[in-house]
């Protein structure tokens, strides 16, 4: 085919159009804006069925712009009737909004709105995926392993909150930027993790979530005022992880754990990017959990084989991470690392001290770790019984298959 449409062109343009229009019409009109943008894409889809434009991206930008102007005119006509507003130079201002840096500016504003503290965390992610990343409710539900109905409720609550609190489509005040940015990073981090650690059956969804988190992180890094050690470290963390996203599942969509992954398939350009970002992070004075998590990810990447993994160093990073931000998952990871180091007692002690209720849906990892402990101690009966517990705890078919395979290996 002569004209290849850029991947995710529609999705990215959706976010851009919604952001520009919101800048013009304000957040109170977000529902109308989203409908109008959606409508534009449906029209484009029908029109492009038989004849693809020479440059789809330029075409879409032009149509988006025209549609924006149409909307503006109809709204202005309405206003003129009511307030008799004098003609402004709106079309000129509008043109400016389509410049690259203004486009990015609008999208960044939307990120801060999505991560506004008035919104609940679950609403923040759903809203961000919808308005910034152009996911449908169905796609968000699939991505977050939630019901579509729940996502609809979260989205409408988010919009109600935005309107009720009269949130402005603006950046936070200078003295609030760091606090607000911390929340933005958390939301990006959670979005990425949903893609990377969740065992969503749909590989494309996993990739899309990671891709969006990386794209938005990159967008933030473009602005000097948002840069920090933490933001660079977060970007490094994403890139380190993303470099082995492909290798995490095989062609049959089965989980391949890091021990079995073909290290040659890890994507080198991303690793390089991560290293650059990590060095940048060190130029700043702030320290964050992302620094340690990136350091841990880097350690795994550095090892030429699984056996050469520097577990000592990884344990040090986990210990520091746990000091900075105590977390049950970090403890669980420390237990796993201790088992790798053959510090059996230390590992088991940590496991014994954990409370399963903190682990939520990932409680199977806890049972899996006990299984690992007993396997290492050659107590196959207990190891298998813990694997069975792990299997019955997870509802995810990929994990179930993975654990069952492990159980069969032990039984033989």
């Amino acid at each position, binding site marked *: 085919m002569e004209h290849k449409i850029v991947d995710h062109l529609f999705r990215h343009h959706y976010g851009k159009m919604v952001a520009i229009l919101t800048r013009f019409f304000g957040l109170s009109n977000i529902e109308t804006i989203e409908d109008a943008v959606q409508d534009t894409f449906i029209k*484009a*889809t029908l029109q492009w069925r038989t004849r693809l434009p020479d440059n789809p991206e330029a075409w879409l930008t032009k149509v988006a712009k025209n549609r924006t102007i149409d909307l503006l005119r109809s709204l202005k006509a309405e206003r003129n009737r009511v307030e008799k507003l004098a003609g402004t130079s709106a079309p000129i201002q509008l043109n400016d909004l389509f410049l690259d840096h203004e486009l990015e500016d609008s999208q960044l504003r939307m990120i801060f709105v999505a991560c506004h503290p008035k919104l609940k965390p679950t609403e923040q992610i759903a809203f961000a995926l919808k308005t910034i990343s*152009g996911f449908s409710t169905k796609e968000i539900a699939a991505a977050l392993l939630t019901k579509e109905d729940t996502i609809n409720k979260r989205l409408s609550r988010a919009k109600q909150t935005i309107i009720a609190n009269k949130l402005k489509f603006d950046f936070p005040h200078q003295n609030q930027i760091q606090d607000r940015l911390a929340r933005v990073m958390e939301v990006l981090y959670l979005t990425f993790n949903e893609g990377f650690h969740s065992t969503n059956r749909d590989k494309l969804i996993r990739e899309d979530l990671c891709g969006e988190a990386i794209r938005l992180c990159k967008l933030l890094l473009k602005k000097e005022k948002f840069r920090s050690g933490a933001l660079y470290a977060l970007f490094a963390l994403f890139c380190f992880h993303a470099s082995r996203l492909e290798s995490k599942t095989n062609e049959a969509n089965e989980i391949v754990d890091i021990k079995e992954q073909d290290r040659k398939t890890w994507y080198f350009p991303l690793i390089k990017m991560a290293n650059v970002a990590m060095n940048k992070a060190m130029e700043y004075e702030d320290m964050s959990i992302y620094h340690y998590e990136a350091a841990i990810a880097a350690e795994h990447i550095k090892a030429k084989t699984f056996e050469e993994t520097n577990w000592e160093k990884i344990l040090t990073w986990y210990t520091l991470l746990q000091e900075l931000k105590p977390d049950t998952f970090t403890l669980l990871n420390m237990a796993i690392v201790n088992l790798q180091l053959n510090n059996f007692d230390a590992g088991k002690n940590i496991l014994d001290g954990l409370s399963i209720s903190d682990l939520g849906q990932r409680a199977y990892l806890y049972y899996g770790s006990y299984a690992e402990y007993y396997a290492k101690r050659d107590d196959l009966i207990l190891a298998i019984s813990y694997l069975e517990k792990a299997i019955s705890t997870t509802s995810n078919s990929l994990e179930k298959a993975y654990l069952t395979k492990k159980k069969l290996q032990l039984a033989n």
Partner: protein
Amino acid sequence: MKDFMMIFIGASYEELGLSPEELQGRMGKWFAWGDKMGKQGILKGGEALVPTIKRVVGKDRTVSDGPFADSKELIGGYYIVTAENAEAVVEIAQDYPDYDLGGTVEIREIMVFDQ
């Protein structure tokens, strides 16, 4: 060779709430199909239809506005192709992209009148 109309029936994309990503995917498939038929020289034309409807019914010429409640049965567009017979058009229709959305292709031969 005869001319046939392939009529596409199903719910409108609006109704289905497709995301931008899905729309782009659909469009790619439609384009590939149209492109394929174009290259084979069998595609004679076609249009997509706007989903709003005006319907005039009965001797009173009662007018009603659609889309109607059962919009799964909406005609979304058509293609006209040249083929040996209806079976050949059934083959062509294998590439119609929207079967998974519950879509239907209806194949009708275009009537030719004696001169």
